[in-house]
């Protein structure tokens, strides 16, 4: 597996973490209504979307490099 392929695996895991953290923060917000939980939840969600866009850009830019 090349660095390109491992990077895509890593970005996929990071996207999972970002959305997982967003859900965790928003659930805490629902329980305690803390403003910081809402902000962290939104920031995490936006980070997840940004990582998806980045992942697609990497696939496009490194098209010529093998996955092996």
């Amino acid at each position, binding site marked *: *597996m*090349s*660095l*390109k392929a*491992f*990077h895509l*695996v*890593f970005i996929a*895991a*990071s996207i999972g*973490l970002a959305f*997982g*953290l967003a859900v*965790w923060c928003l659930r805490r917000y629902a329980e305690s209504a803390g403003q910081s939980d809402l902000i*962290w939840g939104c920031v*995490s969600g936006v*980070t997840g979307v940004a*990582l998806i866009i*980045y992942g697609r850009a*990497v696939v496009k*830019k*490194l098209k010529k*490099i093998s996955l*092996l």
Partner: protein
Amino acid sequence: MEIPYTVEARKDTGLYNAKVGIWLFLASEVMLFGALFSSYILLRVGAASGDWPAISLAWPHGLLNIPIGTFNTAVLISSSITVVMAWASLKMHDFGKFKLYMGLTLLCALGFVSIKTYEYHEKFTHYEVRLQDGKIMTGHIQGSPMFWDLKTLADKKITALDFHPDAAKHGAKAGEAPAAKEHAKHAPIPVGEITYLSAFVPKHHTFFAIYFTLTALHALHVIGGALVMAFLWLPGAKMWKTDPERFTNRVETAGLFWHFVDLVWIFLFPVLYLL
């Protein structure tokens, strides 16, 4: 003597030798971290139910600084992006950009270790105190000294401990439900009343033992990876002039290790900080 398969792929593996080597090494690392993760999960599910520290065998919650941990996670994700950029720059024969991105990666590594050091310092200056009347408190000693215990108090001939307790949640008597989040009153505690004093060090609680084992081992990997990349950034970069393809492969191998270290943190962070 020329080392074979540093650039061209071997026919049987389809890879250059260093890549086979790093993946074999990473497979052994998976077993190391996998064993420690398994230990953590077994300790976590085997912990007593209830609120720590009132129930000493319960699992502590909320002791780690989530915003700092999240920031450190962002730092590591950024470093993975920059290390791929560095490698991609070499693939595109842009050595100047490689230097820039590798420098940024090293800066991220330094940032991560610095923040982790701050987090460790926070734990080493945070204490649990048990009193003769059964009251248990967590908090800080005036002046934030590290690693104090009852022996330190005796050696320093301290008669009253200037202690700043945490919120009432961590100041309940054994068996009491957590109270509302309000800070307990600050008052010097006569040393004669203290039956136990310990900082949040590995021997203090199973949680801290596994927390420090996992994060210190991870931090050692970060330092090791940063040293290799610093070599490739400075003295090792000379190879770019004589053997650019081999140098690019070296950077890719270091990048694979770095990604593994970062991936471990992607799992460590939610397990330690959030669950």
